């Protein structure tokens, strides 16, 4: 593998990791606050559809982005109402959201565009174009660092940079602000938070809504930056891989980013090489694709440390009378 190929594989890994980072951090906020969310997939799908549909109709990707995030927020709110206000089963609410999104996106797309559950292809301003960072062209002839800057760091769409900015921001919010401390406390011991006179309900709703915004960005990225339109089920299980990444990272932000990058890289390697020769042994592509799940099971089985979720996650909070 030469240097340029390596850069290209890494570059593709970054693109594939971006939706995972959005979804994984969405899950991070939600689960840290004690609300399990397996509806990441559904929220991303909804955002992907609405952003593509609205971007096509208005010709502006920014309006599309707002619409996509709004759609994802609606579903997040629904999840909040079901699992916080009505104290329903969070897993079932999440599954319901996935089913709802899978069906309603195709139904609406067919009703609006009559193209069989897809949106027409987006062109021009209706899509996020790659951004060339300053000096990328001038610096690209510098050996080693030039190609890294030009190929790997520059040339992504705006949303990729936002995703990577969310990582330190989330770390800061969760571990260095009062809001973050309370958010984490509400996921570990909501009764204590309540005793301190802080509203558990409000904190959990804020977490679920942040989750909605981030999922929305992930869906928008897939439909308007990676692709030029919506195709049914286009999230293809990425919401679940993001959940696996969250567990693998043991609900910690920096590790979550690293895990998403690893999973993205595994995918890009699997896409580039159908089989890999390693010291005389051929690794089939199927193994590479299954690896994120295998790694997560190993973590869950407690073979490499233990993955302990926030104590109160999955438990609806009932105030004592």
């Amino acid at each position, binding site marked *: 593998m030469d240097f340029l190929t390596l850069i290209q594989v890494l570059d593709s890994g970054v693109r594939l990791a971006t939706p995972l980072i959005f979804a994984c951090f969405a899950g991070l906020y939600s689960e840290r606050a004690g609300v399990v969310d397996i509806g990441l997939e559904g929220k991303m799908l909804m955002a992907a559809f609405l952003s593509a549909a609205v971007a096509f109709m208005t010709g502006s990707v920014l309006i599309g982005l707002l619409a996509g995030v709004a759609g994802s927020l609606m579903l997040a709110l629904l999840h909040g109402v079901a699992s916080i206000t009505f104290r329903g089963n969070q897993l079932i609410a999440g599954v319901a959201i996935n089913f709802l999104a899978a069906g309603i996106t195709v139904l609406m797309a067919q009703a609006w565009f009559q193209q069989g559950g897809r949106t027409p292809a987006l062109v021009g301003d209706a899509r996020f174009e790659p951004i060339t960072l300053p000096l990328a062209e001038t610096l690209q002839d510098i050996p080693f660092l030039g190609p890294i800057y030009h190929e790997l760091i520059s040339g992504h769409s705006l949303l990729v940079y936002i995703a990577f900015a969310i990582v330190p921001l989330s770390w800061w919010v969760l571990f260095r602000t009062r809001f973050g401390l309370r958010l984490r406390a509400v996921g570990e011991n909501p009764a204590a938070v309540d005793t301190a006179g802080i509203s558990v309900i409000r904190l959990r709703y804020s977490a679920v809504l942040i989750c909605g915004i981030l999922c929305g960005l992930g869906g928008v990225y897939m439909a308007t930056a990676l692709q030029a339109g919506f195709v049914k089920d*286009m999230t293809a299980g990425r919401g679940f891989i993001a959940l696996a990444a969250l567990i693998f990272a043991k609900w910690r932000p920096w590790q979550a980013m690293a895990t998403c990058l690893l999973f993205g890289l595994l995918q890009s390697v699997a896409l580039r090489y159908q089989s890999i020769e390693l010291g005389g042994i051929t690794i089939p592509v199927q193994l590479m694709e299954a690896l994120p799940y295998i790694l997560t099971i190993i973590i869950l089985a407690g073979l490499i440390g233990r993955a302990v979720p926030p104590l109160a996650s999955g438990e609806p909070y009932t105030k004592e009378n």
Partner: protein
Amino acid sequence: MKHAATFRALLLGTALCAGQAHADAALIFDLGGKFDKSFNEAAHNGAQRWKEETGGDYLEIELQSEAQREQALRRFAEAGANPVITMGFAMSTPIKEVAPDYPDTTFVTIDGWVEAPNVRVIGFTEHEGSYLVGMMAAMASKSNTVGFIGGMDIPLIRRFACGYAQGVKAVNPDATVISNMTGVTPTAWNDPVKGSELTKAQISQGADVVYAAAGGTGVGVLQTAADENILSIGVDSNQNHLHSGQVLTSMMKRVDVAVYDALKSGETLEGGYQLLDLAAEGVGYAMDEHNADLVSADMQAQVDAAKASIISGEISVHDYMSDDSCPALTF
């Protein structure tokens, strides 16, 4: 899960009731959905053409999961539908289970393989059609490197890839063919993001013509090819119009004709094996106003000559499925 099953059964029930009054045939679409711009959509188009011409009606269902296959077959057979036309190789096993229970119903499998007296197997010589578009790819390529992107890694898709590679090598023995499959599960038919990444990976390896045989995933392949200014080749339906002037051609598999004919025969349709090859116009390449500027008269003449030779038997295109190996490509 019990609820999910009940829910599906309800859905299926509604689908059946919708057109029960006059319907006499049934059509089962595979997981890609009837508007996949490709394989299933071709079947839908054929059925619609029959409906418009004859005023007849038919039952239909778009499968949502593997579990529905057998259930849908039984429901349609119970409802008296005849023939029951099914799309995709994955219907083979369910048909094998169900067909003996309904000896008076004729089941049609397009792309599948079942040996039973009341099953009609319709096959296409995809390797021959792919051979022709492979020739065109090699002639249009300037880098002498062309790509193939398959959907789910199954023998049928390898047959496409193998025919394509043979066509490429027939024009240019030194050309490189890069072949990738999107995945090993049915989600591989609906993952345009992965299709897009695969296309970028092939472009960075030098490919300047990419052939997609990947259902909905192909939408991502064609899009990326158009974005990156290389040529692409569509599959099953005529996909030239998706990116006018940037899709070299499409490997047409006349699923629409097969479905149309089956519906037209109606209850008189009998079991057996039917092969739709080049001679029967079952496969071919698409020419229209969208790719007229891309295909020179010389290219077309060469491809037509090869087509005639294949029909006459002078050229024999190796079929991957005959011995699970390919002389022109390693998987």
